[in-house]
């Protein structure tokens, strides 16, 4: 089942939108600047709507089925959040309006900054970064600004565990730094000896994901922070896995100096098929002044301005932090996403948030318990919100993780994250989240166990999977060798 391209259903003269007539006198146009052709499709509204509805039906999504994609926190996206973000009082405001005319927006941003400070244990938060990797880049630039202000210019090396997301080394390189990889120990923690060996006066800091990408809490996290701080380095926290820590531990208390939150993971804003996300950054007292901005501030004293029609009290305004690294994008952040996260936090409160993390960890451990007898578990510890299995089944050496992943689609499930983290051979990284019922978790476990049997008895079922999807396996080599990145008229 495939769908025509929008260009293929185009017919000259068709229209989906009718605009008002020109109600002012026309002005002559600069002829030499006008384009000749505008090769966009021409479709009617019904054909347009059907086209996109058909396309949507080719997707697996949280709203259509279980999505245990490790490291991505594919939890349910509450519909009230969507309604909130669509309120015209929010969507129909321009970013350059006078502060006095957008006090509602600024209040929401200020309160969200406060909530994130409290949840993460930080002194200040900037909502500007648009995604996790953007937050990482921001954090590294802040660390850079800190060292530079102290004249500590020898520091050029960012330490990154071998289990880290690819964005960590990429963000460090973008900031002009070298990367030194730190290996993991037998229990999946940062190897303390390897860490000590790297710690000297050239260290910018350590980027640590905690719980790490194996789904394990760093057992020596306090000591890791101490070692890094002792050599003058800073601790960067990758908050991708914060869904395990709400009300369980504050990264700021653990010793992190700066951390990004993923509102599109932990705080239930939808992933949108790859964005928009939002990656606010929290900072400790000593790094707060370097945050990107502007950020929202609340006036100490209420000043009245009689000229303002909308709000006589301009309580909230936007300000650049004192030694800011500058802005990391235009305007103030993905505001529409911030509204959703604000709504979520207000509806859950502190007890609800802790319940989220407890049940996310419970669900992961439950699935782990049901699967570890059959699928090899490289680090046999109780996990946090996710866990990593190793794909190759001892009884079916010809079957790869990719085959298991594709076969899961035939059972109606989205596969786990595969082949990551890199330190586990043929990794299967499973994150069920707190919003899935026990029945769903059981159905997934049973499918995984059945697939393990099939791998032994009828491995072709796996090699040829998926068979029930709109398309079967796609030729990715061909796509890369002969890139066809756009439609062209014949």
């Amino acid at each position, binding site marked *: 089942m495939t*769908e025509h391209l929008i*260009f293929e259903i185009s017919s000259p003269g068709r229209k989906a*939108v009718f605009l*008002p007539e020109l109600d*002012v*006198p026309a*002005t002559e146009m600069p002829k030499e600047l*006008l*384009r000749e052709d*505008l090769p966009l*499709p*021409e479709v009617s509204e019904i054909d*347009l709507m059907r086209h996109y509805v058909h396309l949507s039906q*080719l*997707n697996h999504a*949280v709203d259509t089925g279980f999505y245990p994609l490790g490291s991505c926190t594919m939890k*349910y996206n509450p519909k009230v959040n969507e*309604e909130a973000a669509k*309120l*015209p*009082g*929010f969507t129909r405001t*321009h970013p350059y*309006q*006078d502060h006095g*005319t*957008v006090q*509602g927006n600024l209040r929401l941003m200020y309160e969200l900054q406060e*909530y994130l400070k409290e949840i993460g244990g930080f002194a200040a938060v900037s909502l500007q970064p648009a995604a996790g990797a*953007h937050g990482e880049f921001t954090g590294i630039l802040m660390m850079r600004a800190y060292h530079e202000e102290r004249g500590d210019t020898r520091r050029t090396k960012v330490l990154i565990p071998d289990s880290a*997301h690819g964005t960590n080394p*990429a963000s460090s390189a973008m900031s*002009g730094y070298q990367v030194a990889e730190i290996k993991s120990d037998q229990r999946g923690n940062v190897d303390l000896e390897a860490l000590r060996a790297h710690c000297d006066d050239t260290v910018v800091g350590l980027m640590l994901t905690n719980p790490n990408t194996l789904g394990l809490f760093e057992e020596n996290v306090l000591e890791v922070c101490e070692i890094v701080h002792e050599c003058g380095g800073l601790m960067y926290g990758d908050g991708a896995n914060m869904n395990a820590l709400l009300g369980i531990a504050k990264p700021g208390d653990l010793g992190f100096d700066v951390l990004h939150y993923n509102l599109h993971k932990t705080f239930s804003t939808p992933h*949108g*098929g790859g*964005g928009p*996300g939002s990656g606010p950054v929290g900072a400790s007292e000593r790094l707060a002044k370097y945050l990107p901005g502007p950020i929202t501030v609340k006036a100490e004293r209420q000043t009245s301005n009689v*000229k303002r*029609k909308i709000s006589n009290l301009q309580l909230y305004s936007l300000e650049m932090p004192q030694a800011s690294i500058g802005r990391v994008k235009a*305007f103030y952040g993905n505001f*529409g996403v911030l509204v959703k996260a604000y709504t979520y936090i207000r*509806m*859950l409160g502190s007890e*609800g948030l*802790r*319940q989220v993390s407890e049940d996310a*960890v*419970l669900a992961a*451990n439950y699935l782990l318990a049901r699967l570890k007898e059959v699928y090899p578990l490289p680090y046999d510890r*109780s996990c946090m919100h996710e866990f990593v299995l190793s794909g190759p089944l001892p009884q079916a050496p010809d079957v790869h993780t990719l085959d298991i*992943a*594709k076969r899961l689609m035939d059972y109606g499930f989205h596969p786990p994250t595969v082949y990551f983290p890199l330190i586990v051979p043929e990794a299967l990284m499973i994150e069920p989240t707190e919003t*899935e*019922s*026990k029945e769903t978790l059981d159905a997934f476990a049973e499918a995984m166990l059945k697939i393990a049997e099939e791998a032994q008895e009828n491995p072709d079922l796996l090699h040829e999977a998926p068979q029930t999807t709109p398309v079967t396996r*796609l*030729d990715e080599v061909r*796509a890369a060798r002969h890139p*066809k*990145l756009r439609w062209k008229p014949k």
Partner: protein
Amino acid sequence: MSYIPHTDSDRAAMLAEMGAEDIGDLFLDVPESVRYPELKLPLPLSEMEILGELRSMSEENADLDHHACFLGAGAYNHFVPSVVGHIIGRSEFYTAYTPYQPEISQGTLQAIFEYQSMVCALTGMDAANASHYDGATSLAEAAIMAVNVSRGKRRKIIVSPTVHPEYRATLRTYTPGSDLAVTGDEEPTSNLQPDGDTACLIIQQPDFFGQLAEASELKQLAEAVHAAGALLIVNTDPISLGLFTPPGEYGADIVVGEGQPLGNPLNFGGPYLGLLACREKCMRKMPGRLVGETVDTEGRRGFVLTLAAREQHIRRERATSNICTNQALCALAAGAYLAAMGKSGLRQVAKLCYHKAHYAATQIAAIPGFDLVGDKPFFKEFVVRCPKPPSEINDALLEQGIIGGYDLGQDYPHLENHMLLCVTEMNTRTEIDCLVEALEEVTHD
């Protein structure tokens, strides 16, 4: 309300399966000294209560449903057809992740492929990526891309002072340290002449002041840039491309822009999307995600993420960028908007903007004390010299229910008391006449 389906008996059964007695057993790795901190947050609210609270919060704002808006400067008040909201409101789109598993993500993948195709058609480029965070970050990444095209040998980025001030600020944040030199915008008339160390020249068309450089001027500029072995990067307003020459025709190598005007609401500055398109010769140095066409094992057409060897999850510290999550849903909206508007609709939107902006400019220029600044053709924005500080004028306009223009003095000291006004298809003649009347009154105060 925490959206968790578990009953206490579910929890007990799950704990029993793993041989644990208490949920606390699962958190023993967390140091006891910091375990279970108190979170001082407001008490939880029901859906009914939070919606009421948010509605009243949103009503503290002066929104554009209740005010006429003449503010642009990089974020634009354009009409969004209803069909666009219904398309991006399909939860099969908005609750999906990045399409890493193509067999069950063809909807997202094909929609991105179509978006890429339409961005290419609009800009006159060969390839477009799946989006950046916004126009400013697209521009910064395009500059870094140009440095990478020179294999890191060229270290100078020349940027015109008429590029959006926040984009130039973002570019500087993105190029930390003294290694890459960002130059050209120090003075209003800085030298934009590329040399052997120049990776790229960045211009904006229409520029930040709304003005359009002439075709011959642009061609000459492109020739000079190419003669120096550098790339020409053009930051553009996609709506303007409904009428005006695509940058590909006058020699751009990379085209960037803020895609918000294409079907995305103003949303107080985000989420928006950054457009980035380029010529085939630099395609493999592009940052960001790309969707390509291929076939499945049955020979059917299908789409996949491709050329991933440029990206962070494969190349780590040697990737072309660290970008992972982008603005996919905003790109979906942009694609749906372009398809809905189509060939004639986009042209018509651009025409409405052009004629209405010129009508407004002529009327305002006729008011004693106000002057139209600039002698080039313009699209939907224009600069007005005012008899008073723009902040005072805007306060007076607000009393008439009008959101006025952008105060240029905050970014350009030589443009004190200058205002950038924007007129789009959303502004009726009545609104424009009210603006003119209100400005006339300002001079009498």
